[in-house]
């Protein structure tokens, strides 16, 4: 399909553009910090960095050279994977991110899967359960979507750790430690996905093709699994890229609450310590992951929904 290849090339070009632009934004964000940029890199005026440390940073980042040169140097370093040096961790930002990335990805993937399971289960149950189940289902989704992560985490800790004592209140290594954080992230997301799915489920259930399926003698259960669920899932799949993004920002909170290792927690402490290099590094990496993720969902969307192929030429 030449159309598909053209589309893919265009999309890939778009991804590259977004990455370049995000790098530019982070570069200028660094320069926007009030005061001496060298000082900012070392943690701002409060850091009380010595003159020789400042001098070293200036040399390293080429801060004494023209802005254009600095910018190009910055881009050049990025391409080679050098995100700079974190003053608070005393190690390269890339290394720091590498150490933390795995934990956060595990958490995000678990949460995403859990959210999908919850949303689908709720949808399936409320489709079969009639009016009451429908009302309860949409009510649950609504509340779930309105729950802030930090509060939900607190309630879950109270319930499962303090009262029942079956799960650890802070994240411990191993699969048990990921349960509560993943659940905390998954519930609000499941609420959002569920709301979207419900809306499209309703539309699908009222579509004439459902009448056709009924008139063919299909049972309601089979109609749900074979026809309407797929229609309901399409918009929700399209949201998965966005969902991934919201999981990462949720991870900032959740990792802090559960004292769990990860990118989110590093980001938070970097913001608190005003470690600008580390913040921009993490933000850039997440932007990269997010953009790629969006591309992947778009491709998935094209696979699930053949109509987009016909229309979006």
């Amino acid at each position, binding site marked *: 399909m030449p159309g598909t290849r053209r589309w893919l090339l265009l999309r890939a070009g778009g991804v590259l553009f977004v990455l370049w632009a995000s790098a530019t934004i982070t570069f200028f964000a660094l320069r926007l910090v009030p005061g001496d940029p060298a000082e900012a890199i070392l943690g701002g005026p409060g850091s009380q960095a010595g003159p020789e440390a400042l001098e070293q940073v200036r040399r390293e980042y080429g801060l004494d050279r023209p802005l254009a040169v600095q910018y190009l140097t910055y881009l050049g370093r990025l391409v080679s994977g050098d995100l700079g040096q974190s003053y608070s961790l005393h190690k390269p930002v890339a290394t720091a991110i590498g150490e933390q990335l795995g934990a956060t990805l595990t958490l995000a993937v678990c949460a995403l899967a859990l959210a999908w399971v919850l949303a689908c289960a709720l949808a399936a149950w409320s489709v079969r359960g009639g009016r009451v189940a429908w009302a309860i289902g949409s009510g649950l989704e609504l509340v779930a979507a309105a729950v802030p992560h930090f509060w939900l985490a607190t309630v879950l800790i109270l319930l499962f750790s303090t009262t029942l004592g079956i799960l650890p209140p802070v994240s411990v290594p191993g699969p048990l430690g990921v349960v509560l954080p993943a659940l905390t992230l998954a519930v609000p997301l499941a609420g959002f996905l569920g709301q979207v799915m419900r809306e499209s489920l309703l539309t699908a259930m009222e579509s004439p*093709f459902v009448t*056709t399926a009924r*008139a*063919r*003698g299909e*049972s309601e259960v089979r109609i749900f699994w074979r*026809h309407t669920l797929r229609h309901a899932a399409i918009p929700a799949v399209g949201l998965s890229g966005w969902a991934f993004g919201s999981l990462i920002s949720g991870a900032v909170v959740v990792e802090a609450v559960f004292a769990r290792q990860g990118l989110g927690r590093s980001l938070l402490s970097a913001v608190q310590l005003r470690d600008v290099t580390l913040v921009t590094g993490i933000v850039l990496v997440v932007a990269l992951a997010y953009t790629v993720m969006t591309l992947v969902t778009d491709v998935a969307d094209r696979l*699930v929904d*053949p109509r987009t192929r016909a229309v979006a*030429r």
Partner: protein
Amino acid sequence: MSEPVLRIRDLAVSFGGRRVVDGVSLEVAAGECVAIVGESGSGKSVSARSVLGLAGEGARVTATELTVAGEPVLGLPGRRLRRLRGGTVGFIAQDALVSLDPLRPVGREIGDTLALHTDLGAAARRERTLELLRRVGLDDPELRARQRPGQLSGGQRQRALIAAGIAGEPRLVIADEPTTALDQPVQAGVLRLLGELRDEGTGVLLISHDLSVVRGVADRVLVMTDGVLVEEGTPAEVFEHPHHPYTKALVAAVPAGRPRGTRLSAPPTDSAAERRDDRSSGAGTPTTPTLDDPATGVLMEVHGVRRVFHVGARDIVAADDVSFTLRARRTLGLVGESGSGKSTTARILLGLEPPDAGAVTLLGEPWSPLPEKARRTRRPLVGAVFQDALSSFDPRWTVGAVLADALTRGRTVRPGRVRREITELLGTVGLDPDVADRRPLHLSGGQRQRVSIARALTGDPRVLVLDEPVSALDVSVQAQVLDLLDRLQRERDLAYLLITHDLGVALHMSDEIAVLQEGRIVERGPASSVFADPQHPYARRLRDAVRP
């Protein structure tokens, strides 16, 4: 006649106390096609769906007898009912684009019916699916089975839907508006297919709002209105000698084959505007507009207009060397299938779209292409009536606001005068003054189109572009709107460009007809003779579609 495949006695359906079907009785024998004709809201579709237990959520269905092939349907437990659906009774809905799951290949849909109602294995089901697709007249069944509804043409889709409906070898087929979304030549093919089914011994219950559809294929016709059957007979009896007043009105409302100037709707007795109309033309008598000289009265001329759209790497020619002339008191009917470029032509005439080549003149002066500023002062001379009246009104505006806006066009006018003019305008199109305070959303389809016509009249135009003005309306409402347009043309010496896919409407309204195909006019001539001996194969197909 042996045991009928469907027997209904005293069927009644109500939704929450509102009775929509009352006392319907009918029988369908094997090898017979029975048609129920009625307009929207008549209860015809609900009656037919009741046979399958699909009248809808919250429906209360009662009948002294409702049997399919001797088996009572009412009170049948879920499992038995599901065996009946698709097995004994096949169902064919309208518009296969939405009635087949758009995400699944059509072959799968047919295969599902087979899996439910036969004990064929997977391979045998596949074989049978291809056989069925061939049976309904689709070429290359292997390819079609893999395609999704969106990848098929309208006619192909509808045939695939029929294949899915008959896959369980039903003894009764219920076809609910099976041709409504289709262009006329395609309709004919689908109807032929239903006729073949009937000839093979299947009972067919056909539901339609379109009398011409029913006429060719039905053995018996039932006319339904307000939930009640009012007339029954062979097509010849019902259409030639209707008894019930409703049937008479319905038959009279059909524009096809009625000469220009014939009234289609019964003259209402309560409207001043319509009374005025009565004086100007005797009901039922053809009054051919007398035209002194065809060469005079030229209002708009279209010369070699061309318009190409670039969609991705492809070029779509929407108009190619289109030329015609619009004259006062004359209607040019522009007919063609969907996508033939009718609407693009209309948009060029309205100055909404510049032509790539060619030109349009209005009263001998250039009109398009021209910068909008140069055109604006003469905009009042050209009015437009759109197909979907509702979306042509700002949803936030009342009818009064819409008309006031059109009347003033930016000038400051005393509110009292505007109010008076609105009332007058509404009277002209046969609407009560209090319609002004309502929103278009809360009006009926016919009322909306009348408001739309009223808006088009505000600038005292010479030319009206009518883009499918009646295609969304029921026959009797359509008749009223067509009569209104006819009267206005004579009263105001208007030139009409009538765009329609409905040949019957075109023949009834037009003096001259042009047939458009792929942006090109392939046939043209006086309405009385253009289809007498069509030269172009496409025009021939169109003609064959209207007279079976």
